[in-house]
């Protein structure tokens, strides 16, 4: 187990190095001068001033030197300053992280809490009316884009019923109910697709697990159907689902961009979106580090959950 963790750490560092290097190079190769983000348009005609700023920010140094400098700072916890606001990237990210984090957690929880029972039922009762109804709903949930769903929700719950705020964000420290109200619609808009995917994957895995010989022998032992379903079928059927949830969590970090934009939520996705448009490459770079780290950590967590679910993997790991 210790070796496994050590291996994951090495992988984390290697991934971060690779991803930040590639992002650094890519953003530097993009057309457009980052200096333009730093100084007002009127001042951009002043060649001397521009050159001075370039020198100050180190834009004239070779790419590798600039990357090395960024990396050296990053290791010490300094991800640089935003080209647009001039504030440290860390300070820009920190208040936004819990917003997107909460949105993600609520979305995934909704997905699991609704998707897993539905998947179990429709897999267990394959071909039944309940199964067909669930499949139809899942199909619908998969086909409707989340922003369309978001718009419908806003129309119904904010404009018509006036139960929920259409946009904005209340921090949990300010008001718990206010916070729940602001997370409800964006989380539901995001969770519908998650529910659909989770239930479909679990359904098909349950169906194939129930055909296994050990399920037949569990029946022949006289165990109750419900006991067999929960104690014998669910665990071996949840490997694909675990992978998928892990991937989707990581995917949600950027997957929230459109929804954060729609609901005007001050999260990471929205910040990334504006950073790209404003050529705030330092911000893009900082968010990339965060994303890459999240992917690696989530994948490692999934691997550990795998081991907990299926003892056969322990030996191979």
């Amino acid at each position, binding site marked *: 187990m210790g070796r496994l963790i050590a291996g994951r750490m090495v992988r984390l560092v290697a991934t971060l190095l690779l991803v930040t290097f590639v992002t650094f190079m890519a953003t530097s190769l993009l057309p457009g001068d980052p200096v333009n983000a730093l100084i007002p348009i009127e001042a951009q005609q002043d060649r001397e001033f521009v050159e001075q700023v370039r020198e100050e920010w180190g834009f004239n140094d070779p790419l590798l030197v600039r990357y090395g400098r960024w990396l050296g700072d990053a290791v010490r916890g300094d991800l640089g300053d935003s080209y647009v606001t001039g504030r440290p990237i860390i300070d820009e990210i920190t208040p936004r992280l819990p917003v997107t984090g909460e949105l993600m957690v609520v979305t995934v929880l909704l997905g699991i809490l609704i998707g897993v029972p539905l998947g179990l039922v429709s897999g267990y009762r394959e*071909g039944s009316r309940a199964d067909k109804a669930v499949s139809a709903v899942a199909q619908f949930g998969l086909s409707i884009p989340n922003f369309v769903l978001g718009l419908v929700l806003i129309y119904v719950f904010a404009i018509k019923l006036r139960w929920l705020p259409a946009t904005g964000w209340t921090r949990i420290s300010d008001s718990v109910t206010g916070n729940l109200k602001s997370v409800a619609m964006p989380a539901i808009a995001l969770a519908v697709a998650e529910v659909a995917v989770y239930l479909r994957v679990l359904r098909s895995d349950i169906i194939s697990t129930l055909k*296994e*010989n*050990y399920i*037949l*022998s*569990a*029946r*022949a*032992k*006289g*165990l*109750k159907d419900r*006991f067999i379903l929960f*104690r*014998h079928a669910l*665990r*071996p059927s949840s490997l694909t689902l675990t992978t998928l949830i892990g991937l989707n969590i990581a995917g949600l970090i950027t997957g929230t961009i459109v929804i954060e934009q729609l609901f005007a939520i001050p999260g990471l996705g929205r910040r990334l979106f504006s950073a790209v448009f404003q050529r705030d490459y330092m911000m893009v770079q900082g968010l990339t580090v965060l994303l890459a780290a999240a992917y690696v950590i989530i994948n490692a967590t999934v691997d550990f959950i795998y081991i907990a*679910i*299926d*003892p*056969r993997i322990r*030996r191979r790991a």
Partner: protein
Amino acid sequence: MPAENASTPGTGPVAVSAGSPLLRVDDLHTSFHVAAGEVRAVRGVSLTLDRGRTLGIVGESGSGKTVLARSIMRLNIGGNVSTSGNVEFEGRDLLDLPLKAMKNLWGTELAMVFQDPMTSLNPVVRVGRQLTEHVRSNLGAGRGEARQMAIDLLREVRIPDAEARLRAFPHELSGGMRQRICIAIALACEPALLFADEPTTALDVTVQHQILNLLGREQRDREMAMILVTHDLGVVAGRTDDTIVMYAGKVVEQAPTRVLFTEMRHPYSEALLRSIPRIGQRSHTRLSAITGRPPDPIDIPPGCPFSPRCPYVQQKCREEPPPLVAAGDGAGGASHLSACWYPVGTDAGRDAFARNLADRLPQTVVVAEGSEFAESAAANAAAEATAANGSFEGGGA
């Protein structure tokens, strides 16, 4: 832990023939409805089994023996199965029983050991829990009680270091060990009838023997009835009181096991016996396989289902299905039944064989060429049947 008494002959169970048998199956039919048509897996099987007795069901893959066993237990789950006939177990009609009541018999009265121990145990559940979870739910045993029972069971099926094994996962054990555990699971609730469905097919040859001996010993010690399903006539020899040979979903021959080996009447039984390799054979002797394949269960030919492959086949066989009737005046008496128009070992059979040989019928020629072997094989098997396991003595004859 019961003492090993396999070496003590003659301690077989006294058949409690007070009235009705433990299990009576009457004209059982099982079909699966699939897109291509109706798969008639079992076509009118009748049998009886007394308490504490053993019955072998023998046949090739696809002869319906596994489906028969599962039909009796009503384990053929799925919407496309239909079963008809009569299955009477301990005085109850199992086919008429509500499913819920039937489920109460699973594990407690009727238990099954499956073919493949590699896939019959849940890979993500520890052995200890799999051993006794049904004891706890069926009989309401407590945790500590169940644990002690699991240890006792493991010792009984000769698994060393039982306490440590409780925490093992199935993949940490060998195939033979896993089958021992499957047997222990089946025995845990003291069933009255144990089905062993090809319990050794997936195992190493050396382990097969041990597992069969274990099953035999448990059957005797517990005075439990057992149905041993196998494709290998050599497995039932000396291990079961009676034997049924199945082909294409029907019983083609049925007799006390010793009688079957000494007075084999059905050409299919004979063919199965011929296909067993023997130690006495010269090395590189060609094994006598049965030519052709079993009929398509969706489209079974009229007449005797074995006729297309039978070395004794005559025109009558192709047209009229032979009834299962008493196989003459042999030692088996009324308990020896066979379904053949030209039985092996009768004048009718010999004439039919000679006619076919004269006509150079391919399957007959193949058999004739290996004939001296066939005779010796039959003699061997008969000797084995009487000598191998003395405690199965005292058959119905």
